[in-house]
């Protein structure tokens, strides 16, 4: 290694991306594309030099030397005092057992299976259906200046199905998706298509809701988004280090209701699993909040050295991009309450279900996300369906507002964007009751 460099690493990802788009029962497009991207990081005396290249040939040792020289030169203009924590465990975590490898199934067969799901969504009253399939095969190789090497292969795949229903000039959408890391998930899934179609039809009859402060029950999908958006991002070590998180300096403090335990677990075989992170570190189960007390942040090697309180192993990256601190599989731990008991305890409020995504400003401590649908709760019972409902609030006050946690934890796969990078994650929760929430809706607007 050059004397001017303290450390370097290379992460090369090569693979294939397969996509199928079926619109109104016809294959609109399908196909396979190929990629080979690498990122070379070199740590100079004070900061990182980075070279990102596509394509990259891992067997061309001469090109690696040239890229390292360029990275070293780039590092010369940096001035941050960077230290790296010890990497900790670097043994590859066991990869989930694959039941049916998507790569082994012909494109035509996958298209036929997806078509069956979208056809199932085409119920009477549904005017349009659309199905998408995504499959991503990645061969990852990691190498660093200590001589550590790791390589692994993953194949993530999944589908979404959307149905649009129309009536009297009104238009609504039902949407169901599922992604997996343990094999093809397209077989025997027509029930998901039917669910999307029914949801679209039901939403046509749903009412808009009057926004305001009220009690709210979050279903496991939306509760998972809350854990991810409102708490997970604010616990990321880079944001804490840079002063952009309301959770900075709160380790050991009671920041939520004692009913609340929130965990990020890279070892779980959910959609966010990776055998080692983008710095070659094997992740470990991390309890961010235990019984309302903030215990740990999520870290890369750099943020762990700078901030402390937690473990490395949470750095993730898209192919050819820089590792940044990210969640993997994030969830609210289950409590003792049944779903029926939670609805009964709510008495009057709203049940919010499904997710159209969300966003958080961790520095300000404010989050916003949209539910796909919901139900009014009156007298401890579910009443009419509502549409276009959202939830916003302040992270800390909402954490304190969690009054009950159900016993029905469920995880949901998805994708998370941060710093221009999108990585696969999963999140979930049991049904939870918020004693007060700010619910948005467009009734009367």
């Amino acid at each position, binding site marked *: 290694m050059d004397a001017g460099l303290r450390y370097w690493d290379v992460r090369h990802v090569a693979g294939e991306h397969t996509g199928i788009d079926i619109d109104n029962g016809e294959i609109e497009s399908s196909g396979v594309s190929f990629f080979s991207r690498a990122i070379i990081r070199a740590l100079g005396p004070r900061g*990182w030099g980075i070279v990102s290249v596509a394509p990259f040939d891992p067997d061309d040792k001469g090109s690696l030397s040239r890229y390292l020289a360029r990275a070293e030169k780039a590092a010369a203009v940096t001035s941050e005092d960077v230290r790296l924590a010890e990497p900790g465990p670097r043994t590859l975590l066991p990869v989930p057992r694959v039941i049916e490898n998507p790569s082994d199934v012909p494109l035509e067969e996958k298209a036929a299976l997806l078509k069956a799901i979208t056809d199932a969504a085409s119920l009477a009253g549904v005017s349009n259906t659309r199905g998408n399939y995504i499959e991503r095969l990645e061969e990852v190789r990691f190498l660093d200046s200590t001589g550590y090497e790791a390589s692994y292969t993953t194949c993530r795949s999944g589908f979404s199905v959307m149905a649009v229903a129309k009536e009297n000039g009104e238009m609504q959408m039902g949407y169901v998706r599922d992604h997996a890391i343990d094999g093809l998930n397209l077989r025997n899934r027509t029930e998901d298509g039917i669910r999307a179609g029914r949801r679209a039809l039901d939403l046509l009859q749903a009412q808009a809701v009057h926004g305001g402060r009220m009690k709210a029950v979050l279903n496991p999908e939306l509760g998972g988004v809350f854990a991810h958006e409102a708490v997970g991002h604010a616990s990321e070590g880079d944001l804490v280090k840079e002063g952009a998180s309301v959770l900075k300096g709160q380790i050991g403090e009671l920041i939520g209701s004692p009913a609340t335990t929130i965990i990020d677990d890279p070892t779980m075989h959910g959609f966010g699993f990776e055998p080692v992170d983008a710095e070659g570190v094997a992740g470990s189960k991390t309890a961010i909040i235990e019984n309302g007390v903030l215990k740990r942040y999520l870290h890369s090697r750099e943020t762990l050295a700078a901030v402390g309180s937690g473990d490395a192993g949470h750095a993730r990256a898209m192919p050819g991009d820089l590792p940044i601190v990210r969640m993997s599989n994030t969830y609210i731990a289950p409590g003792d309450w049944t779903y029926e008991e939670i609805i009964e305890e709510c008495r009057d409020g709203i049940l919010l279900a499904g997710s159209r995504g969300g966003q958080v400003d961790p520095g300000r401590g404010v989050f916003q996300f949209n539910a796909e649908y919901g139900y009014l709760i009156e007298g401890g019972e579910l009443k009419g369906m509502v549409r276009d409902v959202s939830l916003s609030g302040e992270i800390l006050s909402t954490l304190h507002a969690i009054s009950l946690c159900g016993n029905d934890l469920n995880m949901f796969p998805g994708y998370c964007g941060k710093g221009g990078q999108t990585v696969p994650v999963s999140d979930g929760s049991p049904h939870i009751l918020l004693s007060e929430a700010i619910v948005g809706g467009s009734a009367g607007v």
Partner: protein
Amino acid sequence: MSEEIVDDIIRAGRAHADEVEVALLESESVSIELKQSHPAHAGESHGTGLIIRVIHEGKIGSSSTSTLTNWRNCLDSAIASAHLAEPIPWRGLPGPVPIEGPSLSFDSSVRPDPDVALTYCKELLAGATEFPEAAVVGGGAGLSRGSVLLANSAGIRYVEEHTSVSASLEAIADHSTGFEYDRSVSADIDACAIGRRAAELAATSRNGLPIETGTYDLLLSPHAFASLCAPLLKQAVNGRSVLMGRSFLADKLGTQIAPEHLMVVDDPFYPGGLGSTRFDAEGVPTRKNTIIDSGYLNTFTYDLKTGYRCGHESTGNASRGGLGGGVSIGMHNLVFTGETMKEPGEGRCVLVNEVIGAHTANPLTGDFSVEIQNAFFMEDGHIQEPIRKAMLAGNIFGMLEGIVGMGAEPRRVGDTIVSSVRVHAMHLVG
């Protein structure tokens, strides 16, 4: 070498398909990332990309690769993709026409030089010092340069170069945040002003007051208006959304959907526009398309495929972004103009500088509820107290109808160009 590959691909592809299209992309960039006030990462990137489309008996297939020497696999994949596709009434790729003049989103003086990026970073930080109560969280600057060679079996061989300069800064004061950025094809961004604005937003948003739930006139900044309105409007006028019955505006062509003073034009020739180009992703010459003409919905947007299906010509709106490098329908530069108000903040209103969660709006109906960010009470054009938090709920198309006037200074927010927008009677949940 690249030229030879393009010829080889077209020749090899023509043995299996009626038509072949090749796009060859090359790019290089440099960037410097700030962590708090320190340059922490300095980087460069180099990339190539090859996108192949084939059309055979009305069936379209595509594939892409980052490894040019892998073009035979890429071509095979595109051909296999076409085999699976449904045929459409295809009437051919465009042939060559004179494309006059230099590239429109290119400035030859922009070079990916790390020293220039570092200078921008220093200016960002210098600007931020004007509000010392705000601390810099991070930010950065970057410069890029690239080219696209588009060729097809009908004889097109167009080359277009493009450049980009960008800078951003994020600041925090207590628990108030501020973010500002700009991106241009030229070195005309004012990094010092970006830094100053980010710090100013953080500093002046502190100690916000609660707001009563109710109906308010809003003055939306270009950022807030563009992030709320542009994506949904683009989707609603997308010819494919219309064809497939997924557009709120599908049956509203020729009807009034906005006040008569509002004009919305997709302008591929907008000076310095990030999306400015003389030809689209299929080699169709671009043209100005007036989307909303004096309040009336005037046209939808089409690429060749959707145009052929609908019996409508392409509007020159093909863009890369479909599966495997396939083509979809996009916009170039979406320019909003309307009646300019002498004082858009007159009377009492709420100034909203940013929103969070705009992407969660209902893509079919345009219903949204987002959280406002860096918002202030405003009285007769003067900014008053900051607002702590509130949820803004409404409907994008209803909001268009409620536009009462606009500010005088248009600004670029990505590929949207708009000034501040005054909207009547919007619902805030405090």
